[in-house]
């Protein structure tokens, strides 16, 4: 039973890590129907930014809490500006083009950003400082759930609740839903669609940056390639949960994380990906639009 609980929490943490990234995929897809492959790189850039800021601040002897807050803010702002710029440069000019064009543009952006960080920073792995301290009250259960696991779980839950609130109950949320339903109609009723889309990219990118800080602190190392692998898994999770749906992205991520954890624990880690993707195929056979996705209705 202990073993089951250990694997369960391991899976939850892993799922929450995917979820922090998957939310960005799902938000962008929900609004403009584009799979933003560069999203994983935004997460990586967030991790690098917080690494640089945290390193500088720790030289000046700031307290850990201040470092986390400042590094998190800096990473969120920096990544958001990247998200905003990418949308403006690579996706907006292609908005009326066939669907494949922005997709290829997104893949190009992803490769560009990876190599840009590789050249501008380093190809080496860098040691990421443990920004999340070991809480004393977690010590009795540290062998099951660590402090960083707890912080990641709580953050994911808060982010999901916050986003759902934002979309359901605020003005910008209403505008987002309107844009998602029908761009032309949204323009006609006076919504600035370009601004709504920019806002979506900014929010999604800032979230990815926060994820970058937490996850890098949990794993303890970063390099230019982390965004690609995490991005692919998060994308899978978003599809599993129903791409376009916010609770769906979180649910899909948790299902994926738990499946991988139990597959490793009870079968073999050699088959971790086999189980994860078999599950994806199975769910898509029976629910083609994902666990919580709405069936796409054809607009006439």
């Amino acid at each position, binding site marked *: 039973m202990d073993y089951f609980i250990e694997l369960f929490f391991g899976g939850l943490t892993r799922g929450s890590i995917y979820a922090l990234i998957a939310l960005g995929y799902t938000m962008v897809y929900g609004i403009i129907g584009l799979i933003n492959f560069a999203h994983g790189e935004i997460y990586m850039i967030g991790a690098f930014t917080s690494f640089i800021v945290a390193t500088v601040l720790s030289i000046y002897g700031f307290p850990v809490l201040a470092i986390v807050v400042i590094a998190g803010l800096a990473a969120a702002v920096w990544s958001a500006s990247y998200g905003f710029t990418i949308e403006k440069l690579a996706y907006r000019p292609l908005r009326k083009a066939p669907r494949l064009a922005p997709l290829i543009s997104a893949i190009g952006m992803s490769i560009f950003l990876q190599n840009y960080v590789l050249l501008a920073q380093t190809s*080496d792995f*860098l*040691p990421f400082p443990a920004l999340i301290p070991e809480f004393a009250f977690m010590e009795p259960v540290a062998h099951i759930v660590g402090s960083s696991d707890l912080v990641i779980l709580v953050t994911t839950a808060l982010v999901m609740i916050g986003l759902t609130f934002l979309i359901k109950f605020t003005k910008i949320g209403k505008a987002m839903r309107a844009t998602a339903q029908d761009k032309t109609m949204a323009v006609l009723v006076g919504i600035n669609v370009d601004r709504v889309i920019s806002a979506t990219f900014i929010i999604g990118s800032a979230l990815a940056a926060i994820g970058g800080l937490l996850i890098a602190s949990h794993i303890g190392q970063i*390099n*230019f390639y*982390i965004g690609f692998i995490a991005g692919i898994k998060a994308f899978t999770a978003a599809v599993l949960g129903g791409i376009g749906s916010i609770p769906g992205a979180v649910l899909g991520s948790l299902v994926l994380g738990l499946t991988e954890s139990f597959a490793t624990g009870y079968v073999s880690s*050699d088959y971790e990906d086999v189980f994860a993707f078999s599950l994806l195929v199975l769910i898509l056979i029976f629910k083609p639009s994902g666990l919580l996705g709405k069936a796409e209705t054809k607009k006439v």
Partner: protein
Amino acid sequence: MKSALKKKLFVTAVALSFALTVPVATIAGDTIKFGVAGAQSGDLASYGIPTVKAAELVVAAYNAKGGINGKKIELLIEDDVCKPEVATNTATKLVTDGVDVVLGHICSGATKAALPIYKEAGVVVMSPSATNPGLTQSGDYPNFFRTIASDDAQAKTEVDFAINVIGAKKIAVIHDKGDYGKGLAEFAKTFVEQSGKAEVVLFEGVTPGAVDYTAIVQKIKRKGADTVIFGGYHPEASKIVSMMKKKRMNLNFISDDGVKDDTFIKVAGKNAEGVYASGPQDNSTNPVSIAAIAAHKEAYNEDPGAFYENAYSAALALLNAIEKAGSTDMAAIVKALQNEKVETPVGNINFDAKGDAVGVGFAMYQVRDGKYVEVK
């Protein structure tokens, strides 16, 4: 007007970027073409760059003495990023450029992919770091040599150490599913089973780059292992070691020369303390080795990186063989490599019929106070 200027600037930029990629003008005339291939960029670049530096230093020293038999030595340096699919291109390029011998490649997978091309062209290849046993033991590549012992020698050293020195009884063998890591792990498993003194409680591969290794670490604990033998490179090793510390587990962790790299200590930090890793034996008292390291410090003002001495030895062995053979013909070089002993940083070596260096072996190291120290 403005756009015309922009266009001009653009064209100039493009032209410049091409100009920069054109190799330094090669000296015309009769030279010995000495190829160097390996990872010089990408995330394994730290394994390949020291080899380039070693080759440059050895070749510069030879050229300063007037070259070999009156011929200057010319370096042809190519990057394979440690990827097999790139390595075949690298090899083809070197062969097309008329290379005489090649120092490289760095990673086993890339080496294996490139070897058939060199064999066809009759080019002798010597790797400072490719440790996959099949490269020599299969007998498929009579043109291949190496100045590092193969993985099974390394696995044997690790298992002997685990059982006889640490007294391990239950060993978890973990690998990264790669050519190098899995090969090593399989040998370790076989040697543990043959010993009869310890058992393998877990044998599994982890996915490199995965965000989190909690599940495999919990599994290691559940299987009651007292020692982990890991086959793979430092990024995964430091994640597993850190995760074990997070889960308050205190096991012996033994790994290989993919982990015996200062980057591992830098990334894993204090979690690296106490980790064992096998690596090429210590040559710090060998005068040739001292001279080689001094040359590196003088040229680059820093300590050499991974496989530097093996690469330095390989360069010396190759050039010595060409000198003794008096030709760059493959059969003559192979004969010289097998029969002529040469003083190198890794010892006074020659090569056996399969291509392994005679008298090159492994030692065990442990991280103590942020440094790898040899365990006697």
